[in-house]
């Protein structure tokens, strides 16, 4: 079967669309099973996510985290690596951000702290991904297992550091002191209000712009550099990459470090942008959600932005939905997320082969 005969829109649009619709239909059945009207629920969900300025702000704020983790998963995926450790890398990346902010917020202005924090997030996230990457590339241990283990190690490490070292003296809550305002990412509603634009108050901050910039950078890196070509070759056929003289171990390690660095930027949005202090469990599953975003976005930055906004809308709309219909919990969003991973990831061949076959037969006839 030659791929060439299948029209491009089938792979880019039709198959992802069918997979997502299937995920939504099954989610609808779940809602129906708990005695609620799926269409009514969808209505609340869409209104909550896009119906008013604050809702849109929240949607894009959630999307920011998901763009970062989605990009992280996809960079590794392009190289044939499954980075399931985005959660831990984001957590440690946040530690990098937190340490920079705590160290400099009383002495330095924002325009010095911000670049340092971005470097801190990238360095810590990349550093946390480096060890599994090294072990995979040089010692042959399986990246999936090691990154899972590193999620747990990261979680214990953060509890230890925050509770024993970074916690504010004399307070019960397990979080660091609140940063001075010089270490706060500006909110977009504050940035835009001098221009006379009112977008409503929401946690949406400059990290969103940063996420979009990194989408462009990742796109350039993957499709317009020699390294990106090497990475994609490795992902498509490791033996071909080897034969072409590509240092596969080096590409593997760099791919994982870039992946970990991208995941680390969740800390910029959460720690510097919203919470303004280092706290426990701020990653809240965004690392895992990145897998769904990446699969749905077909590992392409544009697809990832669209998928991240969709999932951001589900998060935000899900809270609205839970408020309007108390029998539905916000966790329904997690179910939808899982179904998307199932249908557009694990069951991707279910439709693909048949639909492609249909178009090939039509092209031949």
């Amino acid at each position, binding site marked *: 079967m030659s791929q060439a005969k299948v029209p491009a829109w089938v792979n880019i649009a039709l198959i992802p669309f069918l997979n997502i619709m299937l995920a939504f239909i099954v989610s609808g059945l779940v809602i129906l099973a708990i005695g609620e009207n799926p269409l009514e629920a969808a209505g609340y969900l869409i209104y909550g996510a896009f119906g008013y300025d604050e809702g849109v702000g929240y949607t894009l704020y959630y999307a920011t985290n998901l763009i970062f983790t989605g990009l992280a998963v996809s960079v590794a995926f392009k190289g044939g690596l499954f980075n399931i450790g985005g959660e831990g890398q984001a957590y440690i990346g946040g530690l990098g951000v937190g340490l920079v902010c705590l160290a400099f917020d009383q002495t330095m202005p924002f325009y010095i702290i911000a670049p340092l924090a971005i470097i801190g997030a990238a360095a810590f996230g990349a550093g946390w991904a480096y060890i599994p990457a090294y072990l995979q590339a040089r010692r042959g241990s399986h990246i999936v297992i090691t990154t899972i283990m590193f999620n747990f190690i990261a979680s214990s490490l953060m509890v230890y550091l925050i509770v024993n070292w970074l916690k504010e003296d004399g307070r019960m809550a397990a979080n660091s002191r609140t940063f001075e305002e010089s270490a706060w990412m500006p909110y977009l509603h504050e940035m835009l209000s001098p221009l006379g634009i009112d977008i409503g108050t929401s946690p949406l901050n400059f990290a969103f712009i940063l996420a979009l910039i990194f989408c462009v950078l990742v796109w350039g890196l993957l499709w317009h550099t020699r390294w990106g070509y090497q990475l994609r070759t490795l992902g498509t056929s490791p033996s071909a990459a080897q034969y072409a003289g590509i240092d596969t171990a080096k590409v593997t390690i760099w791919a994982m470090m870039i992946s970990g660095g991208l995941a680390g930027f969740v800390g910029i949005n959460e720690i510097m942008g919203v919470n303004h202090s280092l706290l426990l469990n701020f990653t809240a599953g965004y690392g895992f959600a990145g897998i769904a975003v990446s699969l749905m976005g077909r590992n392409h930055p544009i697809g990832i932005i669209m998928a991240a906004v969709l999932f951001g809308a589900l998060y935000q709309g899900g809270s609205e939905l839970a408020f309007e219909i108390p029998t539905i919990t916000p966790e329904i969003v997690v179910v939808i997320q899982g179904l998307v991973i199932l249908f557009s990831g694990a*069951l991707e061949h279910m439709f693909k082969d048949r639909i492609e076959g249909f178009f090939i037969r039509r092209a031949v006839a």
Partner: protein
Amino acid sequence: MFETLILMLDATMRVSTPLIFAALAGLFSERAGIVDIGLEGKILGSAFAAAAAASIFGSAWIGLFFGIAASISLAMIHGFACITHRGDHIVSGVAINTIVAGLTVTLSMYWFGMGGQTPTLSGDERFLSITFPFADALADVPVIGLIYSELLSGHNLLVYLAFAMVPFTYWVIYKTRFGLRLRAVGENPHAVDTAGISVAFLRYRALIICGILCGIAGAYLSTAHNAGFLKDMSAGKGYMALAALIFGKWRPVPVLLACLLFGFLDAVAIRMQGVVIPGIGEVPVQAIEVLPYVLTVLLLAGFIGKAIGPKAVGRPYVKERA
């Protein structure tokens, strides 16, 4: 000192039980060539189904049945994706874990409306501890009395079942025709196919066994170890079982020892809370908690021995058509 040790070993047995079931479940699956990241989800799903059914029907046994049924269903979804549709095993496992994490809370809110919990179970709704004959009478006998009455007696049925499953698994894997074929299909599915045996059917059967064992692990958590279902109550036990499976190099007895080691570390971590060791100071609990994961990473990296899994694990089997 001796009494403390016995009490810690006693705790080790309780904590290790779900790990043993889940790790053996993973053993059946991975030995047949199917990677199972979804152990966690199956445990959680079963824990919820078991607690819900036990609460509604008032019987721990009915709970166990529903727990196993839920777990097998999830294993079949995994099989449908990985075996029938040649999907990625890891992606499918992540999908199952994610779906279950959301669905258990959603359903328990709908049925019980208690913030994602099930009602507290009591009496026949739980597996209660079994006291061996003469346990109380012998308790005062030095050494043996304590071992008999504290360590061996006084656990629930599922704990003993977990330990009994280890020789049983050994027998199935190494001494039966099914076990031989199971191992073969994980190493070289083409050879099995050439011998006229269905690769898919064999792998589905392995996943059913995997589902049953995970189901018992989940039911143990919610109807024996605890008295009801709590949100996210599996708390990484599935992943730890996966680590134990690797640490035990995919063999039943070493896997049991790995589970006991991890369980013991857990018991140590709880006991070490706030204890100051002379010369070292207070050992952070987190340092002991991460040991299972650190040890597994070191083992996988070949720093302490070498862990080599089944050869064909994680690869979809495509029958060649001439």
